[in-house]
């Protein structure tokens, strides 16, 4: 990881007013029901994927469209280093937001005498952090070949395609097609529910392998795709 690129990525996102406004909305609004609705628990705080979309949109594509990469790669920086630094930076930003929000949410619940047990708190936070890093990985892959914030459109298309495949499989009574659609939707929303992994029952190894396979595949492919892209210094 390159610390300068890491810091630059966070600084770049922090200087975008629309992103900050959206983050503020997703930070404060889920806390409201927690302050007023009895017995709601931590469930409204499943916001990691939203933060990842807001902060990760155009994670590479925007730099590409803005011409930043042409200048950046004129310096002794490897493309792999750039991709990993961006991924870690946005993932870390999402993690920070998630942890702060969960801390405030737990405070609100504690004030009403509904303090969640530490184990549940840790599993919830862990699940959210994995969801954040997973979503950023997918955006990274799509952003490595789509311009601007086309990665968001890519995620939508991927989600719709997954649904379409499942519907087609149901209509034609083809369970393997349905399964392919389910796997596609799993790829489009990488997440791992840690409460299922650590609550004493059988460990869902398939879910564990699926999550880490999606994340590593997205990272590796993003680097390979960016390695093969030619950066033009002239534009139309």
């Amino acid at each position, binding site marked *: 990881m390159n610390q300068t690129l890491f810091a630059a990525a966070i600084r770049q996102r922090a200087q975008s007013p629309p992103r900050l406004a959206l983050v503020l909305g997703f930070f404060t609004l889920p806390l409201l029901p927690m302050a007023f609705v009895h017995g709601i628990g931590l469930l409204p705080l499943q916001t990691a994927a939203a933060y990842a979309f807001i902060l990760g949109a155009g994670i590479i594509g925007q730099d590409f469209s803005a011409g930043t990469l042409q200048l950046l790669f004129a310096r002794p920086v490897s*493309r792999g280093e750039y991709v990993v630094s961006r991924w870690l930076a946005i993932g870390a930003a999402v993690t920070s937001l998630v942890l702060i929000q969960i801390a405030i949410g737990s405070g609100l619940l504690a004030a009403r005498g509904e303090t969640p047990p530490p184990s549940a708190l840790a599993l919830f936070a862990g699940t959210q952090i994995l969801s954040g890093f997973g979503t950023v990985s997918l955006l990274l892959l799509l952003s490595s070949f789509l311009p601007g914030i086309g990665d968001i459109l890519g995620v939508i298309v991927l989600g719709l395609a997954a649904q379409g495949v499942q519907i087609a499989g149901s209509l034609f009574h083809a369970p393997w097609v349905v399964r392919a659609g389910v796997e596609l939707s799993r790829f489009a929303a990488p997440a791992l529910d840690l409460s299922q992994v650590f609550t004493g029952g059988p460990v869902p190894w398939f879910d564990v392998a699926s999550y880490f396979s999606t994340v590593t595949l997205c990272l*590796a492919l993003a680097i390979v795709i960016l390695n093969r892209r030619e950066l033009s210094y002239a534009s139309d």
Partner: protein
Amino acid sequence: MPATDGARSRSSRATPVTLLAIAGALLAARVTLGIVEHVRPVERPDLVEWRDPGAGEAEARVHGKLVLYCFTDERSDPCRQLSREVFGDPMAATSINEHFIPVRVLDSKRAGGHNPPGVEALEARFGVKQLPTLVVVSPDGAHSQIQAGYGGALATRQFLSQATAMVMMPGRGFRMRIGGPPDSIGGGADSTIGR
């Protein structure tokens, strides 16, 4: 200077061989485990305390609790997956038992049988066209939240939390569809807001 020469000779487009190898190994593990779990699914007992429709609705009115209807068919793969991954998860099941009056509605029509009139009426009331379908209903029956299809344990838990919050705020409502025909519920392939 050897160090500088080394830095210069290092390619800025180096192929991430280790990362690709790890990704490949995990992908192979994913496919293998997927096949193994498909052939021999990991069974988890359903831990939710299900009620019959009539008894559940009466209990919800008395205690002022939300009703969670689960329209299901035990022979359908997504229904069994929902049961295994959500209703068999101790934390999720405890949360459901605490916050809802869970009501299971068994649909036998899709397996070639006939549904009792009560089941038909409930399916018509909530526009159930796909199994499994989860419906969260306010104690007075005025507000409902629907999730059609099964999009995974995490998505279902998210739906339950959103549904709880939305049903508890009067005048609000939304319908969420996962993996079903776009025009059957809510008019969209994703989620829509309305009553």
